[in-house]
């Protein structure tokens, strides 16, 4: 069966509930990437993110009627499930830091395409790692706001929709999250300076 690119999510979901595999695959393709990134940035673990994404879509397979189009967009519903799964995972294993770089930014061919020197590249990478760690250390509610608004570049309204809270809450969480992040990163950056000053 052909899928119209503009076909509405609820129509696709209805078709999926009746056993239309193409419709289900289309829903998956529309939402898997942002949900995966959200879960990855919230948990810091690609395995956890993979499981979260699988859980989200298994909910759609098993209980498609859980989603009520009158209560909001499918994306917000899926983010809601993602949040619940992430929270449960973080409660179970509060710190699950991966051993390797998990966001795919460390690629061998980066050296080839990057005009910067290896030293500069390493510095950038180190800074990125610091930021990622700092984000992962934020309290969950601030982390969510930072991940959605800063990393996913969602508008406040979109983030509020996804997290199921008022726009004002998003603003204040973002404000507080940025301040915490700034404090953490400044502290991290101060350490080498102080270390150098000691010599």
């Amino acid at each position, binding site marked *: 069966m052909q899928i119209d690119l503009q076909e509405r999510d609820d129509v696709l979901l209805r078709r*999926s509930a009746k*056993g239309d*595999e193409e419709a*289900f*695959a289309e829903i*998956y393709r529309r939402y*898997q*990437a942002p*949900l*995966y*990134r959200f879960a*990855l*940035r919230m948990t810091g673990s690609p395995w956890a*993110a*993979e499981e979260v*994404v*699988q859980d989200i*879509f*298994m909910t759609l*397979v*098993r209980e498609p009627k859980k989603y009520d189009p009158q209560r909001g967009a499918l994306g917000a519903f899926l983010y809601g499930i993602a949040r619940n799964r992430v929270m449960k995972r973080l409660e179970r294993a509060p710190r699950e830091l991966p051993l390797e770089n998990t*966001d*795919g*930014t460390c690629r061998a061919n980066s050296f080839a395409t990057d005009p910067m020197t290896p030293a500069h590249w390493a510095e*950038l990478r180190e*800074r*990125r790692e*610091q*930021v*990622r760690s700092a*984000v992962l250390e934020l309290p969950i509610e601030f982390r969510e706001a*930072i991940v959605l608004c*800063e*990393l*996913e*570049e969602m508008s406040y309204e979109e983030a509020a929709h996804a997290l199921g809270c008022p726009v004002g809450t998003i*603003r204040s969480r*973002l*404000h507080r999250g*940025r301040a915490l*992040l*700034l404090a953490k*990163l*400044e502290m991290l950056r101060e350490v080498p300076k102080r270390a150098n000053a000691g010599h």
Partner: protein
Amino acid sequence: MTCEEFAMARLELGPSAEDLQSAAREHLRNCPHCAALHENWQTLRDDLHALGVASRELEAPSRVEMRLLQQFRIKHGTMRTRRTAAVAAWALAAAAVLVGGISWINWRDREALKAPGRHNILTVTETAPSNSTPAEALAPAAMELGDVVVAANSGDFALLPGVIPPSLEDATVVHVQMQRSALTVLGLTVNEEHGADWIQVDLLVGDDGVPQAVRLPQSMD
């Protein structure tokens, strides 16, 4: 603008907040502390943006989609199998009921054929006047019965005088109420004292509507 106001406003700076932006810029020029903070904040924004851009293309590994589609097929395959099984079960039950019903009807018919005149005798409460001929008296009743076919054996029936043994294939058993004296017109002997009594007799009527044989009640034998 105070430092607190600047701290609150700097995170909300956008193209629409023109007044706020100019006030913040003014404050930045005059306050080195806030200028340093703002610089840090810009660095953080850049870092976050870089982190976001670096991982923008990330998506779930293809094995997740494969696993999900497999689960989807299993779930809907099971549902389809269950639905088919349910339909088949109902169809089987309906067929069994139908076969049972047909068998019972056949059995009942066979039983009816074995017991002559038991099921196909229809009661006719028609008064036969004593002065009418047997054919006149009994033909209307036989006509009303239509084409009830009896393949009964005529063991209990007594052939009426002058009648050739009939073919039973098209004969009909008619249950008739008549005055006892009317039996005389059929050629039977009747006690005159009880001639006015109403009795019930079974007549074996041929396909021409003419009575061929008679069966009297036990008491009359």
